């Protein structure tokens, strides 16, 4: 590992995992942490508990802002363990000189998103630091949720499971990239940022037994599938042409040399269910506008254990790797 932190250590991929394992897991080692789930399951399996910090730039972007993101992020981590988000904390670190009007705008979108989840902020903290110490505002939220369906875990995928993606992938990552200074791209693209508990609730209400759920944030769908393949000691085989990608995201990937499946999402999840229930799960998801293009993209096998294989429409295959490095364009 490097001697200093580089941006690649925060990429949600290989370097990020190495840092977490070698520094944090090493120090904090315990059975709950080692489950490596989106949220920790505590209190005899009754509660889910998770935290997330938000540092996005720009603060306001097409489809959402840092406030909405801060609530969705933590609530979604809870939802991914089959838990209903209940109580959140909110910590903000604000740079001296930040506009109060913008702060109010951010907090207002947090409020709206909390209502949608039926959750509330019950404790908080505010710090102001000298100009230059943070980039405008950083937000941390921590949340507790009530587990509605037990046993959802990234460690439990088996040979009868199929893989479903809830919507077209890569919108958040592509939107943020297009909005960064210097890109000067104009597009209709919007972040997928959304609270996922309503969709999870509907799946549970329909009586579907969920094997694993994960929202495909940093590192995208590639990271989720690779983590599952490793944690459950299985192979995941994906039909590449079945993975939904919008024309806008495809276009940005073309221009900048990204893979849509490695781009971040903030309202897109991957679901593993028994094949007998897969069609039903897709039907339930498709009743939501936000997941109207949910689809089965692949299945679990034993072909290449701990790996993810992509099949092309013309009969070739390749491994889908864990994303590495800082997201960067190719030049020619």
């Amino acid at each position: 590992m490097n001697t200093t932190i580089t941006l690649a250590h925060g990429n949600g991929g290989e370097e990020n995992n190495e840092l977490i394992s070698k520094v944090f897991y090493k120090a904090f080692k315990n059975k709950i942490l080692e489950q490596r789930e989106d949220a920790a399951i505590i209190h005899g399996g009754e509660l889910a508990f998770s935290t997330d910090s938000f540092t996005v730039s720009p603060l306001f972007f097409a489809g959402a802002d840092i406030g909405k993101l801060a609530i969705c992020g933590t609530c979604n981590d809870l939802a991914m363990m089959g838990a209903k988000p209940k109580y959140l904390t909110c910590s903000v670190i604000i740079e001296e000189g930040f506009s109060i009007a913008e702060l109010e705008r951010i907090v207002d979108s947090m409020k709206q998103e909390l209502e949608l989840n039926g959750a509330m902020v019950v404790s908080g903290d505010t710090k102001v630091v000298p100009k230059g110490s943070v980039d405008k505002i950083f937000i941390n939220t921590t949340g507790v949720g009530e587990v509605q369906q037990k046993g959802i875990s990234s460690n439990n995928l088996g040979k009868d499971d199929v893989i479903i993606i809830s919507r077209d992938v890569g919108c958040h990552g592509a939107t943020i990239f297009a909005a960064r200074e210097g890109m000067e791209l104009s597009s209709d693209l919007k972040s997928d940022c959304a609270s996922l508990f309503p969709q999870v609730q509907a799946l549970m209400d329909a009586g579907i037994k969920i094997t694993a759920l994960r929202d495909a944030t940093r590192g995208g769908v590639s990271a989720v599938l690779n983590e599952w393949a490793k944690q459950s000691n299985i192979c995941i085989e994906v039909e590449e042409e079945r993975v939904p990608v919008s024309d806008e995201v495809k276009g940005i990937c073309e221009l900048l040399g990204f893979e849509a499946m490695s781009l971040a999402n903030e309202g897109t999840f991957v679901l593993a269910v028994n094949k007998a229930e897969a069609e039903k799960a897709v039907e339930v998801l498709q009743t939501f506008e936000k997941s109207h293009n949910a689809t089965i993209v692949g299945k679990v096998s034993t072909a290449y254990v701990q790996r993810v294989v992509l099949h092309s429409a013309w009969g070739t295959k390749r491994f889908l790797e864990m994303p590495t490095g800082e997201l960067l364009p190719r030049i020619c």
Partner: protein
Amino acid sequence: MGLELKNFYDDFRDAKTIKAYAKVIKKDASELNRDINIMEVCGGHTHTIMKYGLPQLMPKNIHFIHGPGCPVCIMPKERIDHAYLLSMQEDVILVTLGDMIKVPGSHGSLQDARSKGADVRFVYSPMDCLKIAKEHPDKKVIFFAIGFETTTPMTAALIDTVIKKEVSNIYFHINHVTVPEAMAMLAPSKIDAFLGPSHVSVISGSKIYEPFPEKFNKPVVVSGFEPVDVMQSIGMIVKQFVEGRCALEVEYKRAVNREGNVMAQALNNKYFEQREHFRWRGIGDIAKSALKLKDVFAHLDAEVIYQDILPTQEIDDHKLCICGEILKGEKNPKDCKVFGTACKPSNPLGSCMVSSEGACAAYYKYGNLL
């Protein structure tokens, strides 16, 4: 209906068309009682070939040799050190294209330099230097220019603007290299035919490859970068062997003609001249295979201005590295003892592992299923 971005790639990734070409290639290749080694010179082609799994569609007697056409892969370590050292200068903002960020020199990569406080910026267009220079009049902006013929005119256009607008704080470190000289160096090896880099020909025309069928008796097909393009081009090469021809052909007709972009060529010629020699990482010295700023523009040349701090000592790759043999088609990445173990994209020991377009990196990422 207007032209959309997807019009440029959707049809060129069509499964039916790819399968149809695979069939044609298989049939034609079966009429040959010999093997054909095709070098795709350009890293962009290597990327396409590996990403779309094209070797899996090839008959047993058609082989790919992955060429040296990745601009950061062939950059010798001492020049990567130049970028690092320049970025660490107090009053310098080093600007370059994204591919350079991860490439480790002997002190580390530009990513490491940045984490130690250097001001390193990655841009999509060299023209972004103008904005950076304007915002930081107290700093020296050095554009570390990399790439083949494809990116050279962008650098020339920036130089042109800097001179015309009398911008006083932009300098250049030029590492532009040229394709035909490297191809000529590699042509006497076991390569039977070349897939010609087409973006290079968009600038320089297809005429730059004319010596290869004539002088070296090796067919060249100038190919686009989508899988259908590459499959069609392979088909054209195989056809030449079946018919006993040896010619220069252009598959990428939608963008390439014989003469190329003469305005871009004129701009290049105005500011650049050939270096006597350039050391290609993994291959060695190739005469007249790179460009430098003409002497009259030495006042813009960071290599001249900072010559006191820039090392000239050549630094070789690890002795277990076989990139040179891989580039000549004599060996495959998997023949290398350190491939995937000591040498990985996150810690490359040799040139082919450096960028995603290098042969070893492409094998590491996509190729384990072959």
